[in-house]
């Protein structure tokens, strides 16, 4: 299991090279999140984080997923700092025997990271800056687990 919180970018290709090669891994799922610019005015996104608590919270979430879906491997990378449209924000990868386990575990990780990992996003546009509000839908997404 690997949990990394960093400001630097990551190379998805490089990260996935050694991933999911444990014996009896039949399915590997990866998710990558990027900065979107819906309004067309985004200059950058600031991601603030709570050092220490980020790693602890993500590790706990990843351990729960690993146990619940008998993962053979699990990885989370989350960035902080100033990101521009198109930049990678974070990724998760899961490896399991079957596809359903790998998919469910990856979605579980994403749902919990969204609402439980202590990161906050601020959008800086030409018109000003605003903190991204948490969505009710993201909190409700946890109910399915």
């Amino acid at each position, binding site marked *: 299991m690997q949990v990394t919180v960093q400001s630097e970018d990551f190379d998805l290709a490089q990260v996935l090279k050694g991933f999911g090669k444990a014996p009896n891994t039949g399915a590997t799922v990866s998710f990558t999140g990027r900065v979107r610019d819906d309004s067309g005015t985004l200059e950058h996104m600031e991601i*603030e984080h709570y050092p220490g*608590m980020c790693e602890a919270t993500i590790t706990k979430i990843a351990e729960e997923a690993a146990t619940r879906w008998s993962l053979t491997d699990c990885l989370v990378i989350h960035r902080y700092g100033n990101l521009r449209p198109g930049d990678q924000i974070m990724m998760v990868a899961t490896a399991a025997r079957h596809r359903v386990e790998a998919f469910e575990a990856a979605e579980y990780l994403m749902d919990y*990271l969204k609402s*439980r990992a202590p990161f906050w996003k601020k959008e800086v546009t030409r018109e000003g800056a605003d903190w991204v509000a948490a969505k009710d839908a993201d909190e409700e997404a946890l109910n399915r687990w």
Partner: protein
Amino acid sequence: MKIEVLYFAWVRERIGEPRETLETEAATVMDLVEELRAREPRYDLAFSDLKSLRVALDQELTEFDASLDGVREVAFFPPMTGG
């Protein structure tokens, strides 16, 4: 007791600093919040709507009625937006 208090996102911006060390006798998070609100308007503003705030004690998410007994670090912040 001495306690480390951290603020993130717009809570940090309203209060004007990311962290401070406080000397307090507050028994619960709620007591600490009341103490802070009484101090200065910027705190009063930051804590005016507790429903839009979250609190962590020693880096673990908890509720506002939690006890501060033995706690070294309290953090206040809006709902997280990770992922």
